[in-house]
């Protein structure tokens, strides 16, 4: 198959590239591996020491990594859009550049996500993305979109390679024999029969239709990571189309650069001509102009609206001591220079267009930096921090090392790939012009050049940067000396039916009285001259020791109805001893609820022991009413008891439980005679608590809104259905090849 002269010539021209690797090539690979090795070392440092080794901090949480992530995903557009559109429109000059474009897509879509991984604090927990993934999060959109896009790009690239793989199967490479079985396997018995040709063409067309909207979606999703936040400078509705245009612009730029490099390295002057540069240059400047238009629209809108926070970001961008120079480069030079170079015929040649592409690509990298960093440096609340690294972001050597490692990996993969399959499709579709005469001349030139170049040798230079870490200084803690003053407080509590004593021990530490836990407190009852011990207890973490008052002591009638208690702390370690006394008289209170003329009321009765130990109504007593709440008692009223009784309106506006049950506490507090006495009652007169509404689906909930789930399922199944169909077609091609 493919016995035509053109294909054979191409094969003759390209096969040496596959079979041999020049010294320069080896040197390049070694150099790239060294750069990557240094990057790996930086990654090791980052994993061991944590993200502290990067320039990222609490405000600028994303740095160079995310810039590179957007950049690489951006340039992946070259393949998807350029090759997809050129293929669909059957643009005749597309053939020599289409594989490079697709390779850019596949390689950069593989490298891009690696940067987002570098930005993640816990790589060990990546499986959580699948285990607990929430499709409300733009990051999950990204994971799904990029993986789908990468799969599509790989299939697309593969489809376009089948013809060349078949040719390489039929003309085995000589040096590296292990490759031939791979070619044979991957060529899926493609014999260019009419049926096979038709199937291949249909599936390529199909996939290029699918890949275009998919590519747009991928970059939109990327933009939405930023657009969905409330951040000034990010929260913009045009962010998605803006990112898409910027991405195609940079993708075209990178394609032109790659074309220029391979044209020089593999001497493809006869294949990649000025026409390709001119046409792509024009596409590039049209995209550049659109990018300029979006930029203008974006900044004009936020400047005109002049919302405080938007203005703060703009001020940073326009401030000559901050980002003005970068902004000028990214927005003015990055748009105007390529346009001038390509539109003015005098400036327009292959080298200058490649230079313009360089400018555009660099400018777009800087633009991504300007999207991420100034916005993160301008939160809605000012960054109040004295540490400069928390205020201004500056990338560290680790981030730069990994940035260059990514670029090195890009070049390396590209280079190795070009050793595996011709960088330009060998089999032509016959739609292009005949360059064969020119090709012969160029080939002769090439041979002379190759002989000349072999005499030269290459030197590879690498540099290593060393940073020193500062050790933290140990802290010295001062110790106090001398006896510490302590205070003991003894209180009587009568709560419902339980009567007890509470001794609170505090020590004066740093001028404040702090509770002393773990101390032994002794307590006794004083009755005339007799002392009855109540035992010893240890204070809890609030410095409180509790003693129950046995019923027989109360039954004894006390000293004319009064009871005296004493608590003592005998001192321990540095703490001084302390003593406290309290005297009290029993008080009985009864709470009841009643309704009077439709009003809900609380009644409280109070009695004290009389001369003959009988209960008599209390004359005058102030009582406070409370409602218990989570942390404390909420005061709802007070009443004065006269002749043993007091009434209060029930606080019906206070929420109770779901059935409206509310507890009311009546308290006599720190009374000289009665100590602390309280009584409580419960009734369903409170405001019933409405049942908790549990929303299951929503942006902030565990499960996504249904429309989101459906949209995702529909989109994914549409795309994957096409992928499956194409894969199925490949199997059919293989099956057809049997006969």
């Amino acid at each position: 198959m493919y016995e035509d002269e053109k294909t054979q010539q191409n094969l003759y021209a390209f096969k040496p590239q596959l079979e041999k690797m020049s010294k320069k090539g080896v040197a390049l690979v070694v150099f790239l591996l060294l750069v990557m090795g240094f990057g790996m070392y930086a990654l090791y440092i980052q994993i061991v020491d944590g993200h502290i080794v990067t320039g990222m901090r609490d405000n600028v949480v994303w740095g160079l990594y995310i810039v590179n992530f957007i950049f690489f995903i951006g340039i992946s557009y070259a393949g998807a859009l350029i090759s997809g559109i050129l293929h669909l429109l059957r643009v005749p000059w597309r053939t020599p550049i289409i594989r490079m474009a697709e390779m850019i897509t596949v390689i950069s879509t593989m490298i891009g996500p690696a940067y987002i991984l570098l930005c993640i604090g816990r790589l060990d927990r990546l499986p959580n993305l699948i285990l607990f993934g929430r499709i409300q999060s733009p990051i999950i959109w990204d994971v799904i979109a990029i993986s789908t896009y990468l799969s599509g790009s790989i299939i697309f690239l593969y489809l376009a390679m089948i013809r060349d793989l078949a040719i390489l199967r039929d003309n085995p490479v000589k040096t590296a024999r292990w490759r031939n079985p791979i070619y044979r396997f991957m060529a899926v018995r493609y014999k260019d029969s009419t049926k096979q040709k038709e199937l291949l063409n249909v599936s390529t067309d199909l996939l290029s239709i699918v890949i275009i909207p998919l590519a747009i979606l991928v970059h939109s999703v990327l933009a939405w990571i930023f657009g969905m936040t409330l951040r000034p400078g990010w929260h913009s509705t045009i962010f998605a189309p803006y990112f898409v245009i910027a991405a195609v612009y940079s993708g075209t730029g990178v394609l032109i650069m790659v074309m220029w490099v391979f044209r020089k390295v593999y001497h493809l002057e006869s294949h990649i001509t000025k026409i390709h540069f001119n046409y792509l240059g024009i596409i590039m400047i049209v995209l550049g102009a659109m990018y300029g238009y979006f930029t203008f629209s974006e900044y004009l809108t936020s400047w005109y609206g002049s919302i405080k926070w938007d203005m703060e970001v703009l001020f940073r961008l326009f401030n000559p001591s901050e980002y003005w120079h970068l902004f000028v480069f990214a927005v003015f030079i990055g748009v105007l220079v390529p346009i001038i170079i390509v539109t003015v015929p005098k400036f327009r040649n292959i080298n200058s267009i490649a230079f313009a592409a360089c400018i555009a690509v660099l400018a777009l990298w800087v633009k991504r930096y300007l999207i991420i960093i100034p916005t993160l440096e301008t939160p809605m609340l000012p960054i109040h921090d004295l540490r400069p690294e928390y205020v201004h972001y500056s990338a560290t050597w680790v981030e730069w090392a990994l940035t260059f490692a990514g670029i090195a990996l890009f070049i390396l993969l590209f280079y190795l790939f070009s050793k595996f399959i011709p960088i330009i499709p060998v089999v032509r579709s016959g739609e292009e012009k005949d360059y064969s005469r020119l090709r012969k001349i160029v080939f002769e030139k090439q041979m002379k050049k190759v002989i000349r170049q072999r005499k030269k040798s290459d030197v590879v230079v690498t540099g290593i940067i060393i940073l020193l870490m500062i050790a933290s200084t140990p802290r010295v803690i001062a110790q106090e000396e001398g006896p510490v003053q302590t205070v003991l407080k003894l209180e009587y509590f009568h709560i419902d039916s339980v009567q007890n004593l509470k001794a609170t021990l505090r020590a004066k530490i740093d001028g404040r009285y702090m509770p002393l836990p773990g101390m032994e407190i002794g307590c006794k009852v004083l009755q005339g001259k007799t002392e009855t011990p109540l035992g010893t207890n240890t204070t809890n973490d609030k410095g409180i020791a509790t003693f129950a008052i046995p019923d027989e002591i109360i039954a004894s009638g006390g000293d004319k109805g009064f009871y005296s208690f004493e608590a003592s702390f005998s001192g321990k370690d540095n703490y001084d001893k302390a003593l406290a006394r309290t005297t009290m008289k029993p008080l009985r209170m009864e709470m009841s609820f009643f309704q009077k003329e439709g009003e809900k009321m609380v009644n409280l009765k109070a009695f004290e022991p009389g001369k003959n130990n009988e209960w008599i109504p209390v004359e005058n007593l102030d009582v406070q009413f409370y409602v218990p709440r989570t942390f404390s008692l909420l005061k709802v009223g007070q009443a004065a008891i006269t002749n043993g009784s007091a009434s209060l309106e029930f606080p019906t506006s206070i929420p109770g439980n779901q059935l409206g049950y509310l507890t009311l506490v009546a308290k006599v507090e720190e009374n000289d005679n009665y100590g602390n006495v309280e009584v409580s009652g419960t009734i369903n007169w409170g405001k019933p608590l409405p049942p908790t509404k549990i929303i299951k689906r929503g942006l902030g909930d565990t499960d996504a809104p249904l429309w989101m789930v459906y949209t995702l399922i529909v989109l994914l199944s549409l795309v994957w259905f096409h992928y499956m169909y194409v894969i199925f077609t490949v199997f059919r091609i293989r099956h057809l090849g049997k006969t």
Partner: protein
Amino acid sequence: MERRLTNRRNFLKLGIAAGTTAIITGGNSVLSAISEPDSKDGKETGEKIKLLTPDGKLVEVDKGHVCCQPAGNLEARQGLPDKRMVMVIDLAKCRNARKCLQGCQKMHFLPPHMEWIKFYLMRDSADMSPYWFPKPCLHCNNPPCVKVCPVGATFKRTDGIVLIDNDRCIGCKFCMAACPYSSRVFNWEEPKMDKKMNAAAYSPETSTPPKIGTVSKCDFCPDMVRKGELPACVTSCPNGVFYYGDKNEDAVTNGTDTVRFSDLIATRAAYRFMEELGTEPSVYYLPAVDRAFDYKVGFEGLSEEEIALYKTEANITE
């Protein structure tokens, strides 16, 4: 003090302790979300407390049975039943003493530079007078951080608290970029803590021990709420600036005063910070009117450098 173990709260705790007893199951489905405690934890203390059941009966239970451990990672996703925690910050009483932060850092074993409460000297425009503005996490009801989390490591509970599960967090920092209030901080390096604390069982409710490569923030101290105690920021503030409580109970307290939440925010014209963003914070601010302190008092104890920074931020030229 002990009497603060009040009936209403104890009723909730009974739900935790008794779980399946006939009294509690009466019509409260939220309680079933909370598991029974490990029998090992339920130490008998001999101290009895009274609990209110949903149908208004009082029962006595040993205190040891109702004191609970901080919730585990899955349990912590459920909010405390029937609660809606809110905070009210009285700007008129704040003098930038920063005791709240110190208390918070001590309680959560945070290194000095890790601030879950941040202090701003606010000045809304040149004609207005500056005021101190302490800012914990605002625990939004429509939290931008929770929306963007790819793994559900940060979540909103039914009690209004936004928590982080540091065992699930992958450290993508998207929540930090999404939070308009800069409430979140990142553990950029291995947290330096004493071994005892590191060995302690992690709970999203205590946020300790912190974990490298994950996000932290103010957690509204649900572990303290479970115990019926106030967060450290509330109790350590010398001026009673922070009021904390349950909106469903219509009560907030700053440790000394307990007031009705609805009264407080109505009479003092409370506002929520950046309400226009639609985040619906759970933290309310009382405007700095009739101030207890001149704003300059807040400069006490600060370095010259920091004072200068505050002055720049608030546009104070003198």
